[in-house]
């Protein structure tokens, strides 16, 4: 299994994927930091760290589904482009091992994005002089929440990217996911619960509610039931995708 995973990273040589993720997160964070700066200049009494985390988590709902779609597409499309299934499958590797390796590879890349964000949040907070201490205790929740949501999205994206040769569909799905993630909270809760792209804010250590025309930040711990539900959805999409692909003939 480790061999298959390292092989996926080997195949990503020259694809500049880490640079692309860094730039993508850079743009997102630039947008988030500008937004936070505006909020803090208008409301100097607001808690800077909460504002920062809530803003990044909200931005993640828009950016990370698109990033997950791009990452998954890059990893899967190289097999379609070079017609390499008939090269790789008649070896000792099985399709489900390759499927798992690709999924593992995209999860590691998304973890890199989440860690990069955490580092950026810390650096921004310190350089901007947000009131100490740095809320390190929130970071594991932030990373776990981000990763669990990204993993669910990746399970869907990988299924689509490997099943369909035309990656335009997978990328469009990522964009639709970003839109639904961003606007998910505007839908009734019964509806937005099914939008896996909107869980970045639901699983964030801080969230906010609009009451009396102002935003109130609420600290939250990871809800075990929400986490379990998202993980179950991830497992279902992963297994269905794997099964669907294994039934296709190369």
């Amino acid at each position, binding site marked *: 299994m480790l061999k298959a995973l390292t092989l996926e990273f080997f195949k990503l*040589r020259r694809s500049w994927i880490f640079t692309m993720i860094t730039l993508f997160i850079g743009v997102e964070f630039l947008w988030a930091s500008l937004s936070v700066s505006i909020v803090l200049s208008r409301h100097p009494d607001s808690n800077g760290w909460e504002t920062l985390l809530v803003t990044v988590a909200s931005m993640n709902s828009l950016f990370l589904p698109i990033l997950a779609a791009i990452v998954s597409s890059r990893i899967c499309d190289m097999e379609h482009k070079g017609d390499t299934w008939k090269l790789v499958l*008649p070896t000792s590797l099985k399709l489900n091992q390759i499927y798992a390796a690709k999924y593992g590879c995209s999860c590691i890349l998304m973890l890199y994005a989440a860690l990069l964000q955490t580092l950026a949040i810390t650096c921004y907070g310190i350089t901007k002089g947000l009131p100490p201490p740095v809320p390190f205790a929130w970071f594991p929740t932030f990373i776990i929440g981000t990763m669990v949501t990204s993993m669910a999205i990746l399970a869907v994206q990988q299924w689509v990217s490997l099943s369909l040769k035309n990656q335009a569909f997978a990328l469009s799905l990522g964009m639709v996911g970003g839109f639904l993630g961003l606007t998910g909270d505007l839908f009734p809760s019964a509806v937005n619960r099914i939008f896996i792209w909107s869980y970045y804010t639901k699983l964030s250590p801080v969230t906010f509610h609009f009451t009396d025309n102002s935003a109130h930040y609420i600290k939250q711990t990871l809800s075990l039931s929400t986490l379990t539900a998202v993980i179950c959805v991830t497992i279902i999409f992963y297994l269905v995708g794997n099964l669907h692909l294994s039934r296709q003939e190369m």
Partner: protein
Amino acid sequence: MNAVVTTQKLTKHYEGICRVKELDLQVYEGEIYGFLGPNGAGKSTNLKMLLGLVKPSAGKIAIFGKDFQQNRTYVLQHTGSLIESPSYYGHLTGLENLRIMQRLRDVPDKNITEVLKIVRLEQQKHKKVAHYSLGMKQRLGIAMALLAFPKLLILDEPTNGLDPGGIEEIRELIKSLPGQYGITVLLSSHLLAEIEQMATSVGIISNGQLLFQGRKDTLQEKSKNYIFLRTGNNEWAQNLLQQKGYHPVKYKEQLRLANLTDEEIARINKTLVQANLDVIRIEEYHKSLEDIFLELTRKENNLC
């Protein structure tokens, strides 16, 4: 001789259409088995089934004497393949593509050096495969198939996209594989000349059915010479020749006689002239392998 590949009633249906019908293939150790058939005959489907890329609708596959389904890993470890067009990671170099196969096959570095030398890609190994010509990609595909120096090499149209010089080189390479490395080769082609020059055994497939299988010499034995005779009165000539012990068959405006020596032809001519029959034309017709192939494949139009 041990059978390396054996299939029993191998069948494949696609959406109700029968692509391969009850194929009983026998490839023996050390052979170069030429799988010949027109485009769409079911060659690639059959080869893909042998590699587990396509699931058979019915039938059994045994490779190296072992059931394929139950010994998939063992079989694939000892089988190299190049199916249809070459597969590659275009953004990687030729060497990096071979490194991927090296990791998948667990083979030493020296194998890479050797296969690069065999397919003459040493100078281009650091070039991205996306920038390779079709012929170079084909060579890389062969190199990847050969990398582990497998016991069985399955090549689907291996000379596609190669220039005449390249075809000659690959042909010589394939011919040398059984002797030099002990590799059994199963190759497919729609080009008779290619199979004729490389294969020791031949399987002819059309519309998914195996029409002939055996040594190339056996097939060549079928390429008889015919003598076509045209006289002033073919009916009378036929009767006369039958009385003399020959077996002329009426064929259009002529009489056809098979496997005659020069002396017999001279004797027949003399007999006809002495009987006051005008001998208008005596023609020799050599039935080539191509004729046999076309004859066999044209017969089979209805399947399943």
